[in-house]
């Protein structure tokens, strides 16, 4: 390595100056190689080499040259790294690109480096601040425009700064130079008053685009409609004063679609009390009542997560969130804050549950789609291409989940071109909590008047302003950059351990909740309902940097924070415990019973609103729906005689193929709780269901799965929802969970939700949720909606485009397994085992993957027959309980053909099956029989000696033995007795893996 040390003059370093430490690799650097690969893959084929340096810029007034030298050795590893101080690392290169953070953005690496330095130097290093950045040195005949473009492709301009120099400039200026990304703000911010005595037009504009700042710029969406604005105006008129900005912002947060679910609570046609109360919640009530003493629900729809009985000692909780809008702008940041955010929904359940399992689900456009679309006219502000969105989001959940030590065994990726404008990011967390804590019900919590309001965890910054109101709007050029939060999983892990593993058992607090959407404005005001009042001193809230406007402190969604109610006499003990755990905890006010939410800033009252108005003042919407007409042409392609090629093509489809690269980068073994893993069998096939053992002292397990069928909604939203529910349930049954104990979670990700047609579809889907949850007796325990997943912008021809996601309903399911040893994986196990199809196949290919492969939608969408399904599920559960089933794969996308192939691939064993034997109704084509997506079906393998016992157990249901396991090929005989497919396992495996290989 040529360091050319002598070609540079030493920068003069001394007391009080900022210093720059550059750490470089002395050995092969896998990170640099991977960066190089990515750059070349992004089309910069002339780049021939890359090297990296990790840069630490120190602001440390008291450290001398020798101390800084010591810092260098603290921040590097002599076995593989070297470091330079005050002079730049200078390998052979043509362009240097440095990427660091913008002012105010959380810099985890910098913070850790500063902590290490303070630990060594003590008082001398007080006030030390470290800024981290990374310098990338590229070799190759590229232009400076290329270098700039490469920098932009590697960084996110919302949170990172990019600095590019060519070699000549670098040499001339002796390196990249020192950049101190310090936030500098107006030093004396106060709350402003806002005049609402304005025209309706102006009032509406304030609601839509935000309060006008002194510099004549709007502050960003309040997402309040004119009707709401008028009610607010009248409220303050009644008080005889103008509202302050913080009051308006606070109302906007609390009343946002995101927080109040205005569409689900609105009057819709004949549903006077809204979809949530009359359908979702009602279904849960009925299902629980029907279950009687078998009702396992403990806490539903009231807390941050829903909770059910796990065993005599524990409850298990579950919550699934979405983080779509932030992930569209900053895929990595949006996804990491999504996953660590939903972890806090476990920590915020009852007195605090321990997060035990993460789940994920991503809806993307095809990563190969490279056509640009733009937020602004004239080809300006391109949105990120699907591939970058995909990889960024995958990595965000990787870092968030792995760093938190929470296993992530379960997830899916679903692809459709309509997710190009806005991806969907579903993230969920299960939690475990003892039913009793020191003899008290752990689900009960209540702030009492006199309790201190304590904020725990991270500090508050400008990140995540208007997250709640922004996600209640379509993505457009007006979407605020500050809406993206930055994740810091280690800060949260420290907080989580200190709260759940220590403070909880010591009974140091009365109530706890998450700081999520709306930040303090929502968490404090929400908790204040428990005692009917709160008063805060905003200046005591710890900030990332001084000079923030009060309203921003109040609504900021800076991450990794919880709000607690702590009895006065326990505050000292609590704060001291947190200190010893490296966690910041600050008293910021007091709960009371004044009926008001009062916020003071440096003694001045800047907010004084009745809690009742804050929470219940928003007008109830009245909405009307209309059912859209949906009729598609029936595809007319001919049946092929040999279906081998079609089966291989099906296995390669984005929605069916292997996503092993995601499963292996998510730690699914941590906590030692993994039972059924994300990749099953010798052949490592992605399974639909996973099972965990949350308490190593118990033999019980918890099975989890998810299902969604957005494309069925192109035909019928009712069936879309019904199929998702059926699949989420049958996936669990296949693994060994019994129907009786299964509970569900709903996540609606809709689009343009004020349009009557969209509401019509919503009404249909919700009706299906009601009907099926009641019939299956599977209550909903928690849910979430995100109603405006639309993108408005311009295409490559400068024509306006609107891309809306297909109305998407994700159903997540959870069930307790009595004995984990009885669980069944999906892989075929042993040569000679019999192959069974359970459940009837019908002509139901509409909206399915086979028709999609033929560029058709069709109309024959799968329908759920819940009565037959229930009988089948109970019979299968009995057979599994009796140990009669060697493997079981639920039939989903791609039908029987794909399910059989996956069973074989996973077991690394072939099969011979006869389609003629499969129970079916009205199918005359082999391809339709093979790929129909009829619901409530399974492919199971059974040992020959268990044949009669198994068949006895399944009696009364539609099922049939269709072949046996063995060999290294998949051979299928068709309806006419002729062979219709024969494929080698190796070829099937290749087809299954090739699509996303390389990621």
């Amino acid at each position, binding site marked *: 390595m040529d360091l050319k040390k002598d070609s540079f003059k030493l920068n003069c370093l001394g007391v009080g100056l900022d210093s720059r430490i550059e750490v470089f690799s002395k050995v092969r650097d896998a990170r640099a190689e991977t960066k190089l690969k990515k750059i070349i893959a992004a089309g910069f084929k002339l780049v021939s080499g890359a090297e990296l340096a990790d840069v630490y810029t120190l602001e440390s007034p008291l450290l001398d040259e020798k101390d800084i030298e010591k810092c260098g050795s603290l921040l590097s590893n002599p076995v593989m790294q070297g470091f330079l101080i005050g002079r730049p690392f200078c390998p052979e290169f043509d362009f240097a690109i440095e990427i660091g953070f913008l002012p105010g953005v959380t810099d985890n690496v910098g913070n850790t480096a500063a902590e290490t330095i303070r630990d060594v130097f003590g008082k001398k290093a007080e006030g030390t601040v470290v800024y981290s950045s990374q310098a990338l040195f590229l070799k190759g005949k590229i232009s400076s425009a290329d270098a700039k473009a490469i920098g932009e492709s590697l960084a996110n301009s919302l949170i990172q700064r990019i600095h590019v120099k060519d070699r000549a400039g670098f040499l001339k200026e002796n390196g990249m130079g020192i950049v101190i990304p310090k936030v500098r703000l107006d030093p004396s911010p106060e709350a402003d008053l806002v005049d609402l005595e304005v025209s309706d037009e102006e009032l509406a504009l304030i609601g839509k685009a935000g309060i006008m700042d002194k510099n004549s710029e709007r502050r960003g969406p309040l997402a309040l409609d004119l009707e709401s604005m008028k009610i607010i105006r009248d409220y303050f008129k009644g008080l005889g004063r103008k509202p302050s900005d913080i009051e308006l912002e606070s109302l906007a947060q609390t009343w946002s679609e995101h927080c109040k679910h205005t569409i689900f609570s609105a009057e819709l046609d004949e549903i006077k009390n809204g979809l949530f109360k009359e359908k979702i919640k009602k279904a849960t009530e009925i299902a629980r009542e029907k279950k009687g003493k078998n009702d396992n629900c403990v806490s539903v729809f009231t807390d941050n997560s829903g909770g059910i009985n796990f065993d005599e000692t524990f409850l298990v909780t579950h919550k699934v969130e979405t983080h779509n809008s932030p992930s569209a702008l900053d895929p990595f940041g949006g996804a990491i804050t999504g996953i660590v955010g939903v972890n806090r929904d476990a920590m915020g359940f009852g007195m605090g549950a321990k997060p035990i399992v993460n789940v994920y689900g991503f809806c993307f456009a095809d990563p190969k789609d490279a056509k640009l679309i733009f937020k602004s006219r004239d080809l300006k502000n391109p949105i990120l291409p699907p591939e970058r969105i995909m990889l960024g989001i995958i990595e965000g959940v990787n870092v968030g989940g792995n760093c938190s030590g929470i296993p992530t065994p379960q997830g899916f990726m679903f692809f459709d071109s309509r997710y190009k404008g806005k991806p969907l990011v579903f993230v969920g967390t299960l939690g475990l909590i003892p039913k009793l804590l020191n003899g008290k019900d752990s689900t009960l919590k209540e702030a009492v008047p006199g309790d201190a309001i304590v904020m725990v965890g991270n500090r508050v910054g400008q990140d995540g302003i208007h997250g709640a109101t922004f996600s209640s709007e379509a993505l457009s050029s007006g979407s605020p950059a500050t809406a993206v939060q930055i994740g810091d999983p280690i800060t949260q892990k420290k907080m989580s351990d200190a709260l759940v593993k220590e403070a909880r058992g010591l009974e140091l607090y009365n109530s706890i909740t998450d700081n999520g959407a709306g930040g303090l404005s929502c968490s404090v005001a929400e908790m204040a309902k428990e005692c009917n009042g709160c008063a805060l001193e905003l200046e005591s809230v710890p900030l990332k940097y001084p000079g923030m406007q009060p309203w921003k402190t109040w609504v900021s969604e800076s991450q990794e924070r919880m709000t607690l109610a702590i009895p006065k006499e326990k505050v000292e003990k609590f704060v001291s415990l947190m200190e010893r755990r*490296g966690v910041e905890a600050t008293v910021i006010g007091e709960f009371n019973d004044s009926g008001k939410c009062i916020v003071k800033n440096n003694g001045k009252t800047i907010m004084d609103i009745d809690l009742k108005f804050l929470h219940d003042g928003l007008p109830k919407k009245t909405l009307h729906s209309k059912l859209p007409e949906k009729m598609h042409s029936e595809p007319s392609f001919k049946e092929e005689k040999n279906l081998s090629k079609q089966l291989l093509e099906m296995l390669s489809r984005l929605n069916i193929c292997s996503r092993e690269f995601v499963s292996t980068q998510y730690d699914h073994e941590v906590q030692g709780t993994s039972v059924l893993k994300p990749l099953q069998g010798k052949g490592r096939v992605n399974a639909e269901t996973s099972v965990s053992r949350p308490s*190593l002292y118990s033999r019980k397990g918890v099975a989890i799965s998810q299902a969604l069928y957005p494309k069925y909604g192109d035909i019928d939203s009712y069936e879309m929802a019904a199929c998702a529910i059926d699949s989420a349930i049958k996936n669990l049954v296949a693994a060994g969970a019994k129907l009786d104990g299964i509970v569900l979670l709903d996540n609606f990700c809709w689009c343009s939700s004020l349009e009557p047609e969209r509401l019509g579809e919503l009404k249909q889907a919700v009706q299906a949720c009601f009907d099926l949850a009641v019939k299956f007796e599977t209550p909903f325990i928690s849910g979430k909606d995100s109603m405006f997943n639309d993108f408005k912008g311009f295409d490559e021809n400068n024509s306006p485009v609107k891309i809306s996601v297909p109305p998407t309903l994700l159903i997540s399911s959870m069930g307790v397994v009595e004995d984990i040893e009885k669980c069944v994986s999906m892989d075929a196990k042993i040569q000679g085992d019999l192959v069974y199809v359970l459940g009837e196949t019908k002509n139901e290919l509409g909206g399915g993957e086979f028709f999609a492969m033929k560029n058709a939608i069709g109309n024959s969408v799968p329908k759920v027959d819940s009565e037959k399904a229930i009988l089948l599920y109970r019979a299968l559960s009995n057979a599994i309980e009796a140990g009669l089933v060697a493997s079981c794969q639920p039939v989903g996308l791609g039908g029987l053909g794909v399910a059989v192939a996956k069973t074989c691939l996973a077991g690394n064993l072939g099969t011979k099956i006869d389609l003629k034997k499969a129970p079916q109704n009205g199918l005359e084509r082999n391809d339709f029989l093979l790929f129909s997506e009829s619901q409530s079906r399974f492919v199971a393998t059974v040992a020959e000696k268990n044949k009669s016992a198994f068949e006895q157990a399944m009696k009364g249901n539609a099922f049939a033995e269709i072949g046996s396991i063995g060999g290294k090929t998949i051979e299928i005989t068709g309806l006419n007795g002729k062979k219709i497919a024969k494929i080698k396992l190796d070829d099937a495996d290749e087809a299954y893996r090739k699509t996303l290989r390389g990621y």
Partner: protein
Amino acid sequence: MYKPTALVLTGYGINCDEETAFAFEKAGSAPRIVHVNDLIAEPKILKQAQILAFPGGFSYGDDTGSGNALANKIRNNLWQELLEFIDKKNLVIGICNGFQAITNLGLLPGIGKKYGERSVALAHNNSARYECRWVSLVSEKNKCVFTKGIRGIEMPVAHGEGKFIADKKILKQLSERGMVVFKYAKNGKPAKGEFPFNPNGAMLDIAGICDETGRIFGLMPHPERNVFFTQRQDWQLQKELLKRKGLPLPEESDGITIFRNAVNYFK
């Protein structure tokens, strides 16, 4: 029956403390999970223990290099106490991030008992990505107390920085002095760098090493995630095979041996 105390560190993003403590408990020791700061505040806790475990996790989020910030913290606050602990012929194990921490501390390899010198490192995986997968390991002829009687074993790895590197001289010394404990394997033989059998590109396929006394042991794979039969990646297949032979399913899996060896060392 005598139960040695196993001190399991936690704090700052360590996250495998509970299952590591569980494995020690299952193996017959009395585990105690202790926060790094509590240990610093009260170093005598160390005097009461016989086994010290640095569990896996993401101490300090891997910032400034995996295991580096935690190593700095210990070196700056507990170094003498740690040397005394080792001197008393006690046992130390570092798993995954704990292995990274004790190599940064220079507890490993400690050639010539020169503890404190960094001479091996765990670099970014060749894939430059976090890899969570099961690996096969074969043991070399070695002195390690923890792995007595183990010839081959399977366990999961889960790390982004696990590529073992050292210069030739050190590698030679490690091999000659019986300090190489586990190598990543394919079909019972060292994997020769082949991915995914060697999941990170480790030199000589090294997955774990011990010091010259055999009492300090560090490894990237996670034995504490393989103490139950139902944790194994192949347990579903094994279950069917056993059932059809009419045999009962075992409760344990072989990872427990590592913890049991540690406990038995004090008997």
